[in-house]
């Protein structure tokens, strides 16, 4: 047994007695970035396979929210910075070894493209929409001819952003809970699940699109469950630091929140409600959608909190 006590006094704020340096802002940013990526991946993918007219909510309406959600995500990231007025330093260099640098540059390129993507779909989603100036109308019409190129660029950047939300954490070897290669795919899947929930909230009653996205959401929740099981299995089959870290979810202080908020309410119950809906049993789709979105946020929140507590 080893007992270690700091005898000289060490109470650095946010560091001692346990690390708590990233409160809600970072998880909120990761959640919104995942949601926006999911919306854009679905919208651009359906466009590229020539199905953009078949799924108007997913392709044309939902992405209109994307730039605004992305700006909120960026604002949360800005709120988290403790040396805010120096944020521009992010764009003075590219650091290949820093996931945060990758994320910052991805945000920079993706944000204007999401505005363009939303703008070219605005009039089809809302036929009564009128641009205040003619030059705006002309510009949007001009950009429509580059729809395919835009879709490829946005698809690539959205996949990068979504994976970045997981890799940002998994790159930290110092925190055993985060140091798992599963986090990237898990956050990508969770982002897609959240996006399907968001699309379902906007779908009209009984539409084919609603049925399709119920099925997509169900598959996505299945993959998510598979990845969560592998995450835990990965911890338990790794070194002692990760085995100990897994205890946080298996009897430790995050057990209740992890299994109830993420696994039960955020994954299994909405999956069950989707099955009921697909079997034509009346279930208001708002319930699984809200559960998935809440679960998506808590997935990031709990993993960020638990990761900070876990150590070598």
């Amino acid at each position, binding site marked *: *047994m*080893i*007992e*270690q*006590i*700091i*005898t*000289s*006094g*060490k*109470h*650095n*704020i*946010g*560091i*001692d007695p346990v*690390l708590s*340096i*990233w409160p809600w802002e970072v998880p909120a940013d990761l959640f919104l970035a995942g949601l926006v990526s999911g919306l854009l991946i679905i919208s651009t993918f359906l466009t590229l396979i020539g199905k953009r007219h078949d799924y108007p909510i997913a392709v044309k309406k939902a992405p209109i929210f994307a730039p605004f959600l992305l700006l909120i995500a960026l604002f949360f990231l800005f709120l*988290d*910075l*403790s*040396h*805010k007025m*120096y*944020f521009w*330093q*992010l764009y*003075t*260099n590219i*650091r290949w*070894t*820093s*996931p*945060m*640098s990758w994320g*910052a540059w991805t945000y920079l390129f993706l944000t204007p493209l999401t505005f363009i993507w939303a703008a070219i779909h605005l009039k089809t989603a809302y036929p009564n929409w009128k641009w205040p100036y003619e030059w705006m109308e002309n510009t949007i019409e001009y950009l429509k001819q580059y729809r395919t190129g835009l879709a490829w660029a946005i698809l690539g950047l959205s996949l990068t952003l979504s994976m970045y939300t997981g890799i940002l954490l998994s*790159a*930290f*070897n*110092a*925190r055993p809970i985060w140091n798992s290669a599963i986090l990237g795919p898990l956050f990508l899947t969770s982002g897609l699940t959240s996006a399907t929930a968001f699309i379902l909230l906007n779908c009209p009653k009984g539409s084919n699109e609603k049925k399709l996205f119920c099925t997509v959401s169900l598959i996505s929740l299945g993959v998510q469950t598979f990845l969560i099981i592998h995450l835990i299995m990965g911890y338990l089959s790794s*070194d002692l*630091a990760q085995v100990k870290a897994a205890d946080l979810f298996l009897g430790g202080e995050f057990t209740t929140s992890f299994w109830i908020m993420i696994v039960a309410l955020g994954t299994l119950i909405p999956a069950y409600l989707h099955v009921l809906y697909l079997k034509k049993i009346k279930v208001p789709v708002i319930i699984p959608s809200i559960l998935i979105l809440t679960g998506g946020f808590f997935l990031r929140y709990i993993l960020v909190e638990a*990761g*900070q507590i876990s*150590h*070598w």
Partner: protein
Amino acid sequence: MRYAMAIDTKKCVGCSDCVVACQVENNVPIGHCRDWVVEATSGTYPDLSLEIRSERCNHCTNAPCVRCCPTEASHIVDGGIVVVDHDECIGCKACITSCPYDARFVHPEGYVDKCTFCIHRVEKGENPACVSVCPTKCMYFGDTDDPNSEISQLLRKRKWKTLIPEAGTEPNIYYLT
């Protein structure tokens, strides 16, 4: 050149003079510290052993804080000392979470702060403040690339360990055991 520090755990009495010296020398704000003293008790009663360690940033050769910094604010200067450029630090705190030793903190002015091996003193050929004031002379500072330096000789003669070597950070603080 590769600066390193060796701390003799057989001589350290845990007086915390190193902590006070650092705070005075570097004007560390109240409530924060760049170094600290740990008492580690191991074994089972009555077979217990006590080790006292003065800890700080390990100025790792493979520094995760430098790797993850998005702005190059955290960087390694000549001699292998890991420093933070205050005017480049955005306060994203990625370096804090990446450090397995919890050696960094957010300065009240917003940037991230940590031990610098008193680089301003080292550049003048002096020892870091903590080494200078140690009443038991249990701390040694020098160039491990120089085989004739006191620290190199000690590391050849004595048994030593580093903290959390399994993290792969290649620390440059050695504890003589």
